[in-house]
């Protein structure tokens, strides 16, 4: 009988090969995810560049956004996007933060088990449905009571609906931030005789402030990128005149893209209309990427602290 050597204890070549092959498959998959990013950047960059190099400066500063007539006033869309997102944040931040504080500091575990899944269900409401809600309820049943001559399609309703959509996102990120605050801080505050409300406002919230900021930034980025709500409730047409009033309709970066996209081969009129779609995409991509980058950086700083 020969003694065992290292060769006998090695895994059979077939099993080893299978293991190595699987590793390559997994590696290819992760390279594919990077490929998706590269494809996005490549597609929008090339067409956006065509637009940027062919458009004339005077076309970018006109009375509004009329792509088929060669008027690409970016400020109209940017201002509308900003207005709607700010309205959205006015709705979403108080409710989202309050839900997060309530869930993390006050709610009984049983209440929590009901509210948390409900918020998740809220997050899954499709944006087209919220758009329909905006024109069938928010404008006619709520806003028209306060503003008599409000337009049926208006930025205010769009902003409120987008805000409702963003609540669960802000609530979920903020709650994670609040729960990351060590229990010892709360116990120390209570031990010094602080009331619950003092502990929450003076100790827990300041400790989690960077996470809460991140939640707001990510929420803002989501609000800017929201398309269908705005397209249905405010920017139905593919053109919009520059107007600062929230009671009037107006297209945003995203709704202008959707409008250009209805039957993409029908984009007629000005040659640059089709390319402007990609230019807007590039703009939107850069804005949201920048916001998310800041948000992620803030979250990382928070994670390192505790």
């Amino acid at each position, binding site marked *: 009988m020969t003694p065992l050597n290292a060769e006998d204890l090695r895994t059979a070549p077939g099993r080893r090969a299978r293991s190595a092959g699987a590793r390559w498959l*997994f590696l290819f998959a992760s390279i594919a995810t990077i490929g998706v990013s590269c494809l996005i950047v490549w597609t929008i960059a090339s067409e956006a560049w065509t637009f940027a190099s062919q458009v004339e400066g005077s076309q970018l500063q006109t009375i509004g956004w009329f792509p088929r007539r060669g008027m690409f006033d970016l400020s109209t869309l940017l201002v509308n996007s900003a207005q709607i997102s700010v309205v959205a944040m006015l709705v979403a931040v108080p409710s989202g933060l309050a839900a997060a504080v309530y869930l993390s500091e006050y709610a009984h575990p049983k209440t929590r088990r009901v509210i948390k899944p409900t918020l998740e269900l809220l997050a899954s409401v499709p944006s087209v449905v919220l758009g329909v*809600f905006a024109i069938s309820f928010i404008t006619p049943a709520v806003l028209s009571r306060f503003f008599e001559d409000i337009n049926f399609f208006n930025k205010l309703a769009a902003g409120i609906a987008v805000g409702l959509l963003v609540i669960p996102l802000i609530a979920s990120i903020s709650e994670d931030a609040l729960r990351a605050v060590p229990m010892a801080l709360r116990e120390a505050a209570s031990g010094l005789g602080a009331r619950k409300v003092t502990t929450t406002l003076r100790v827990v919230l300041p400790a989690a402030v960077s996470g809460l900021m991140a939640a707001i930034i990510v929420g803002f980025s989501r609000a800017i990128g929201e398309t269908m709500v705005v397209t249905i409730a405010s920017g139905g047409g593919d053109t919009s005149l520059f107007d600062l009033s929230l009671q009037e309709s107006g297209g945003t970066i995203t709704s202008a893209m959707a409008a250009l996209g209805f039957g993409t081969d029908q984009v007629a009129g000005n040659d640059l209309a089709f390319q402007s779609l990609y230019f807007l995409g590039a703009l939107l991509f850069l804005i*949201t990427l920048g916001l998310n980058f800041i948000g992620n950086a803030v979250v990382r700083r928070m994670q390192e602290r505790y």
Partner: protein
Amino acid sequence: MSLLSNPAQIAQRATDSLQLKRRNDVWGTTFKVCLFALTAFAILFLAVLIGVMVVDGWPVLSNRLSVFLSQGFSQRSAGDAGVWQGIIGSLQIALTTAIFAVPIGVATAVYLVEYAEGSRFARVVELNIRNLAGVPSIVYGLLGLTVFVKTLSGLTQGKTVLAGGMTLAAMVLPIVVITSVEALKAVPSGIREAAYGVGATKWEVVAHQVLPASMSTILTGTVLSLARALGEAAPLILVGAATGFLSFGDANFMETFTGPFTALPVLIFNFARQPGEDWSANAAAASVIILVLILMINGTAIYWRNRLEKKW
């Protein structure tokens, strides 16, 4: 005020002050009530939303539900319009999305957690995934239009379910990866070590131990992300979902994968754009149908996730 001279007195004072404080803590109570009210606002809104949709869609839901569910889309009259093609299109798109997004997403997660944890490559992939997760859905529509509809037209035949599904697959890929990574990380390392200890190869550890142990969490995460794809309209509009009249002709089920298509949310958008009471009733009724579909899928997934949450 008398001097506190014995323990009983001190205890009495302490109890008094506690009770006094609780009664007088107006600010604390107000704060708590405000928090609860704002939280309730979010929950209440979901109820109002569902209520408004049901009420507005009631003429359609009560009178011609079966016709509405089985009829194709017609732009000529609101009374004939149905959502059948939208439902079929949405289910086909969800299926295509799953076929592309799940294998790539789970495989990426396995590579990140099991093979490359902490490496520079893993950090790059993770950063990339996080950034992709923040890209607005309509930008994925541009990707779909250029790459899947035009460049890959040999494979997808242009504006088809296949192109739409692949676009949404790219969109949900980051969510699938993120939820799968969390599921894999939750598997305790003792399970891996035990498998290595009895001589399993890396592939056997992954395929026989880690994946089965995390499968339920991965599946519920995947279902949640597919539900998101089901409700998405913006990228499909850019990819060219039919927004007008759509005829399947006598195409069989497989052929509809490579023909013109539409989807439920796109139909809702379309109904909402038409003027008139009848069309808004259609939009509300279709919204009820998609809400029921999505809330059912998500409710089941969330319920199972909470039940299956393993305490290792």
